[in-house]
């Protein structure tokens, strides 16, 4: 992070000023938040009768309870993540094929899949193949994210030094085996941060199932609100906070894990043991490589043509 260079290590005056500014800003923020909370409190958002439904076990574990919805969300995400990884590898291989008869159509298809909203694909699968909402969501997520992961892997393979492919071919591997055994493993390692980030986006995208009608957590939440509202008290806000907490909990945990993994993977690799069993020293790195490792995001985040945000 270059932030530390942008300003001096603060001296006593600057520290005092910065602290003062921080306090002023914090006070303003707290007051704004306080007014919002007070308004909600006047509206009754924190009264017992807005939250009592969450003590009802049926709300959590009933046949159409929140936990069942969460289960659907997670199972859709799990199946789709595995499928998207497999499809992504297949797309990357086809995209890298020697024959233009394979390469060009794959490129067009990938471009097509990446350029449209996942929601459109979900509706398409739902209406044309009538698979039911659950599988429509799964298939759409597999195809869409498979295309994105395939494109990421291709970019990863392209970023490898040319000598990798050439030496693979030179020792007599077929082009396909060169791709599979030399280029793809390296591309996977380089692109893993992007792929994992995309899988988190995939988890968020499962909530689009709300619109096509798969019983994932937001749809269940909505139905529960409608159901309990008939017995008194608007519960929409409390339900929103509960679902927000669930999503933030899961996503922030996963993001933290991904960040740790990225950090670990971008450390310089040590060689294995020598043939006689003695440990090797660290593989020497050029200063350029060292500089790149200092900022693992710098090169990899700028993948041509891939949406940073992805779908909602």
């Amino acid at each position: 992070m270059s932030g530390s260079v942008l300003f001096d290590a603060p001296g006593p005056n600057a520290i005092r000023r910065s602290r003062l500014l921080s306090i002023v800003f914090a006070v303003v923020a707290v007051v704004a938040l306080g007014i919002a909370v007070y308004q909600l409190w006047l509206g009754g958002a924190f009264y017992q009768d807005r939250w009592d439904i969450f003590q009802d076990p049926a709300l959590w574990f009933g046949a159409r309870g929140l936990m069942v919805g969460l289960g659907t969300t997670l199972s859709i995400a799990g199946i789709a993540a595995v499928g998207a990884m497999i499809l992504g590898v297949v797309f990357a291989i086809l995209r890298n094929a020697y024959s233009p008869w394979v390469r060009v159509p794959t490129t067009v298809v990938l471009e097509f899949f990446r350029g449209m909203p996942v929601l459109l694909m979900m509706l398409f699968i739902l209406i044309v193949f009538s698979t039911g909402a659950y599988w429509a969501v799964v298939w759409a997520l597999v195809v869409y994210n498979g295309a994105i992961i395939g494109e990421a892997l291709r970019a990863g393979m392209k970023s490898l030094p040319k000598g990798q492919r050439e030496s693979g071919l030179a020792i007599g591997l077929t082009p396909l085996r060169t791709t599979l055994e030399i280029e793809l493993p390296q591309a996977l390692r380089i692109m893993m941060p992007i792929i994992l980030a995309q899988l988190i986006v995939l988890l968020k995208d499962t909530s689009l199932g709300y619109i096509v009608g798969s019983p994932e957590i937001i749809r269940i939440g909505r139905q529960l609100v409608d159901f309990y509202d008939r017995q008194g008290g608007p519960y929409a806000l409390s339900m929103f906070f509960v679902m927000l907490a669930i999503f933030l909990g899961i996503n922030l945990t996963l993001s933290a894990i991904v960040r740790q993994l990225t950090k670990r993977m971008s450390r310089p690799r040590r060689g294995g043991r020598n043939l006689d069993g003695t440990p090797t020293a660290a593989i020497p790195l050029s200063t350029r490589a060292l500089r790149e490792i200092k900022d693992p995001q710098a090169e990899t985040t700028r993948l041509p043509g891939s949406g940073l945000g992805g779908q909602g």
Partner: protein
Amino acid sequence: MQALLENWPLWLQGMGATLLLTAVVTVIGLPIGILLAGMRVSPVAALRVVAAVWTEVARNTPLTLVFFFTAFVLPKLGIVLDFTLGAIIALTYYTSAFFAEAVRSGINSVPIGQAEASRSIGLGFGSTMQLVILPQAFRSVLPPVINVVIALVKNTSVAMGFFVFVLVSVAQRLSNVYGDQSLQIFVGIALSYLILTVPLGQLVDHLERKWSVQR
């Protein structure tokens, strides 16, 4: 295709709404994003914390849940918004965080020596940012920012689930009426999105190729 051609006013309406949402959200969201990015690298700790919390929360909330808030929760609190306005608010909140991250990554991509040189000739944080970092960050910021706009074009489709008539809604409504032509209708709508996203993607590739050479 026949069904789409016959119903071109409907298509135009959907396309118009999609373009309107994209344009309005970009115009409002980009300045907010730049502001957030600036706050994130600023010397004042409280600003950094607020910006970090905003971006992290917005990026880790599904867009559907944000729409759920503007479309269902706010009315229950007595704030009844027009559905299009609700969609604009939801998309702006969500997208501003991604704009912020794009800008911040651009700021971080300026070689560290530039900031060091600027600091060593005595410029402060404000001048360093304005005169040295941001002008250089601009060229590496633009491609990721356009990528965010591409994602935004696709994200406007979520508004369909919350009573805004966008391009996806055209596909759904027409395929209900012309059941036998649903394949063509969906391909047509997909192409309509590609008309918007592919040129933007090409622009990103072009800018990256053109500007990366000069580094």
